[in-house]
């Protein structure tokens, strides 16, 4: 169970300080699929780096089962937005890296790895280098590399963003099935509302800058869910609309403040009046 108590994170000093996250507190329950959604460039990746232990918060604390987070740990593994496979290792060596770095016996590493390779359907690509894999394959290899360490908490930072829409749908289905048969706590960051509603048990909508929790939506859709049926019933669409209207407001703020704040908003407003 991850608990964040009014986390504050800012970069720079004095006049050049920028607050990225300001008194953000929430709780992620164990074995639940938690999704964080918010406009881009708002600090979601910073939050991930804080939880994973790569950076320390300026104020506030992050407790995992009561213990303070001090540094990275193989129970909290991150899958980044761009591929972080080691380019000079073959797919198999990449997957073997975690357990072998922790000194596990070579025998059962190989066994676990073969099982996972089979599961992610990369048996044929075991010998190939990451540069020779397609986007979808790289993502599956990276998931396998994380899952072999059997982490308690899987953190994914917009993992399917670089893929084209169709591969993304296949990967979504795929990851949902993968996390159903071995439940663990998931922290999934995305900007895509469909991904969020499809995967989430609990959806955190974040504000624009500085980032804090704007709303928490309980996505109580039945499991297992499939991508093409999930949006048929009205309840799912209602949840989507609720999140979407919040998000649209935050996106507008991001959009307006991304372009010289009020001045640009006035420009857009005057144009509306002119054409109405």
């Amino acid at each position, binding site marked *: 169970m991850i608990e964040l108590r009014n986390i504050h994170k800012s970069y720079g000093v004095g006049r050049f300080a920028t607050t990225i996250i300001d008194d953000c507190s929430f709780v992620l329950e164990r074995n639940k699929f938690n999704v964080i959604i918010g406009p881009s460039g708002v600090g979601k990746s910073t939050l991930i780096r804080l939880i994973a232990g790569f950076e320390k918060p300026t104020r506030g604390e992050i407790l995992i089962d009561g213990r303070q987070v001090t540094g990275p740990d193989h129970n909290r593994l991150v899958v980044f937005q761009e591929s972080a496979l080691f380019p000079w290792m073959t797919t198999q060596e990449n997957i073997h890296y975690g357990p072998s770095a922790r000194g596990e016996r070579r025998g059962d590493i190989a066994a676990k790895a073969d099982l996972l390779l089979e599961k992610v359907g990369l048996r044929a690509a075991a010998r190939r280098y990451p540069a020779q894999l397609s986007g979808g394959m790289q993502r599956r290899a990276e998931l396998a590399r994380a899952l072999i360490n059997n982490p308690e908490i899987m953190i994914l930072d917009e993992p399917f963003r670089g893929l084209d829409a169709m591969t993304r749908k296949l990967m979504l289905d795929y990851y949902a099935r993968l996390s159903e048969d071995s439940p663990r706590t998931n922290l999934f960051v995305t900007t895509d509302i469909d991904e969020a509603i499809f995967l989430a048990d609990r959806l955190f909508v974040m504000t624009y800058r500085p980032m804090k929790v704007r709303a928490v939506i309980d996505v109580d859709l039945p499991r297992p869910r499939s991508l093409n049926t999930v949006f048929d019933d009205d309840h799912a669409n209602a949840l*989507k609309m609720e999140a979407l209207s919040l998000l649209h407001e935050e996106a507008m703020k991001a959009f307006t403040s991304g372009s010289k704040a009020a001045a*640009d908003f006035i420009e857009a407003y005057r144009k509306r009046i002119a*054409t109405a």
Partner: protein
Amino acid sequence: MSAALNPARRGALTIDNAVKIYDPEGARVLAVDHCSLHIPAGEICMIVGPSGCGKTTLLNAIAGFHDLDEGSIHLDGRMLCGPGRPKAEVGPDRIVVFQNGALFPWKTNLDNVAFGPMVQKRLSRAAARDKARQLMAEAGLSGYENSYPGEISSGLRRRVEIVRALMNDPTILLLDEPYRALDALTKSVMHEALLETYYRTGITIFFITHDLEEAIFLGHRVVIMTSRPCRPKLIMDVDIPHPRDYTVLTSKRFRELVHATEAAVHEEALKSFALGEKEG
């Protein structure tokens, strides 16, 4: 929305049984196989297909970057390429907006937008810059004239590029997955900006995408392509009324249309997945 749907008088595109064979190291791969398609003037036509299925080859043929081995393409009756002339002539009547953007990073946004007319010597340098300033203001990009493309967000860059295209008053706008690299929320704001531009100009749009929902949200018609070699598999009219905004995404009609086409797209995606297509 007053300037919405004046019937555009130009921009009708006809492709009939186009064939294109690639020859990487003599492998002679068939990319486009007898593809025929007619796009009436002033329509937003969405081309949906799996990665590496030859959609971009079709776009390159229309723009004149590549030749066709067979078949012909006509724009408003005029033959772009055909039996006599395998390669269409590149011209400002068909402007391409590329997937990763092609704003010249060494020119300010204003010079980028003013580049077209200035280079074609249709306008003097000063006149081109003034018109560019006015067009950018109209698209809500005032204040960005003097910054460089490298300094503004990718969403804004994409809008500047579309203004640069419209500056030349093209007959047809060719978009090659322009919003692929953007995150979902910026994409929804971009969609509204594109629709707004369409309502203002009524220009024909030939839009290639992977994202079925983006296609149905934007397009008058959605053409679903087979995996390689590409040929239209299913053409569907999107009868959601224009002007549209983001609330359409959750409307009942939208979901029905998605269902009608999802099976076809999914099937093609699996085929190209099996082919081990490396994303473009």
